[in-house]
């Protein structure tokens, strides 16, 4: 569903943000990209969303080249950002309606909005609240609600649990599990090893633009993911 082939990105200032990165995220799978700041996690998402072009290699969503046919590729993907802001003066419903219509979902009814709010764990009355009164956790949930309304086969999430309190983060992970059950291919970038261990089917460990390791759930289910992460990072350091 999401596929990266030898994806490389070198910025104008010479920094190599991605170095021949390749992996696939299959339907019904949650793939967590772990790495320090500047490892290339967000660059990957930026290329998948055609915010920046790759230097070489290619990225695909549902078989569509993200760089050559970005509009086709973006039809099959939703994006949840690190800090979902949305339009503060609008109500939750107005925000949902706007982004859903941008995604081509027209003629949604009240029931559709109520359902999606329930699914993400927001009270229905929140539909009429202005976003400026939402907490960060509520806004993150609304971000997922937007992604759900579009109902694409792939979802990209950039540090989605950053800044969430433990309860909100837990609720968020529950939502992700539901999405996985619905067959979505989910790519998450995060520093949060603890939550990655809880939710990921596979984790990819990135360091300075390179994907240094991919671990399956079986590898870290009963192990210390942080130790694996640190080990891989040190090994990568030694190689470089």
């Amino acid at each position, binding site marked *: 569903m999401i596929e990266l082939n030898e994806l490389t990105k070198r910025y104008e200032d010479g920094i190599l943000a991605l170095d021949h990165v390749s992996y696939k995220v299959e339907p019904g799978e949650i793939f967590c990209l772990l790495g320090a700041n500047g490892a290339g996690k967000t660059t990957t998402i930026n290329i998948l969303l055609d915010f920046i072009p790759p230097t070489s290699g290619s990225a695909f969503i549902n078989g569509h080249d993200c760089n050559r046919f970005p509009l086709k590729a973006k*039809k099959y993907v939703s994006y949840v*950002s690190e800090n979902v802001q949305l*339009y503060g003066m609008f109500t939750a419903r107005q925000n949902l309606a706007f982004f859903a219509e941008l995604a081509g979902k027209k003629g949604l009814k009240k029931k559709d909005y109520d359902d999606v709010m329930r699914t993400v764990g927001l009270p229905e009355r929140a539909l009429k609240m202005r976003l400026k009164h939402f907490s960060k956790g509520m806004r993150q949930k609304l971000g997922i609600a*937007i992604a759900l309304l579009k109902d694409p086969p792939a979802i990209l999430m950039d540090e989605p649990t950053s800044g969430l309190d433990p309860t909100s983060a837990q609720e968020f992970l529950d939502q992700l599990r539901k999405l996985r059950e619905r067959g979505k291919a989910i790519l998450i970038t995060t520093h949060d090893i603890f939550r990655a261990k809880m939710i990921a089917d596979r984790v990819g460990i990135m360091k300075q633009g390179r994907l240094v390791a991919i671990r399956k759930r079986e590898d870290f289910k009963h192990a210390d993911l942080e130790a694996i992460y640190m080990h891989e990072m040190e090994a990568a350091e030694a190689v470089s």
Partner: protein
Amino acid sequence: MIRQIIYREILENLLSLRFTLSLLLSISLFAAAGFVFVAKYKQESQDYWKNTNENLSGLSEQTKRLCDVALYEQTVYRKPKSLALCTEGFEKYFPNCLRFDIFSMHDTEVRRQRNFDLVRSMYSTEVGSRGNLDLVCFSDIDWVFIISLILSFVTLIFTYDTICGEKEAGTLRLMLAASIHRHKILIGKYIGVMLTLGIPLFLGLMLNLLIVTSSKEIMIGAGDWLKILTIVQLSFLYLSIFVLLGMFVSSRTAHSANSMVILLLVWVGLVILIPSFGRIISDAACESPTEAELGRRLDEVSKQIDEDRASGKFGLNPDVFGSKNVENPPGTAQLMNASTEAHNQVYEDHLNKLIAPLILGRSFTRFSPTVLYQCASEAVAGTGINRFKSLYQQVKRYQAELKEYVRGKDAEDLESLHLLCAHSQAISDWGVISKKPVSFDTVPKFQERDLALGQSLKLAIWDIGLLALFNLVFFAAAFVSFLKYDVR
């Protein structure tokens, strides 16, 4: 998808404080402009009819003798224009009346003043300076003032964060993550802002027109309504430039604060500095003739006429002056007419030289959309320099018509010598022009005619074209800039 973006843009703006404030500002300014205009128009209208009636009654008194009609110094006043509501066009700096007889213009205010100090307003009959055009960029509070100065700034307040503000809020990434072309977002935002701006503008204009039309003194004809509609369209064309400028700068900056500062500087340059500096440059490039120069040229002409007379060109005895040349009335008339014609030419050249700096100044300042908008609006409304030039030409045509009338009536009188000349003594002593009475009804009367919309548009076509060009350039710039905009 554009529809959703337009809807969102409008809704977001309508919910914002800046919209409420701009609405209040617009409504209060247009209302104030309406009340001020009605009060001013009433006064000007009363003065105009009083002065015009005095002029006509004076003309009526002269009809006892045709020669008196010929020598009567008429004073034609500028009629107050209902479309000065849209743009007053510095009219108060132009002469309010022109004086003339059938031989020459006696517009002394025009002749004597230097530069546009010359152009004095006198909607009362007193001549008094009300300002110096060198020091002003804007005229009274009228539509063009409100739109070109206030609403252009309001437009920037609506657009400075159109792109970079969305980037700061993170909503631009979300929008572009959808399957939508960037140009659709840009066009949607443009239309959204234009429609939002249209609300305070439209409500303000409606209120203004309501105030003006509810006054009994002010009549707005069908042709005027068309011109008003054209000026409204010009206003949108003008404001559109600032919308696109705001979007362009917003898509070149990462932070809305930077965008606002840059736009503020550009706005000051386009709306304040260029119109002001252009005039100063034009004054330096095109020196206005002085009163002394006029006097010198008149002396030269008089000297030349005397030389011609001395050389026997007019068949007059060089040693005998004035009405003593009884032996040769045609020669005296010829001399008088040659002298009048030569002096008229000097005065006309002087007037053209006085107006030239203003025209040149406007040409220099056409880098500014504000000046283009002012010029185009003045041309359509029939105010400003074009109106003054038109009035002057109309008076000259009327002068020629009246002269032909006098000539025709004079030809019917067998006792007259049929020698039209501005020589009162020759008229009284020799009867060079008929002294018989004429019917007042048959005497042509002056009536100022407004240009039709088509003719006005012809005058404004270049300015409108340049306004459209500004729009195209800024749209292209905003388009290219947004396509390359880094949303990270």
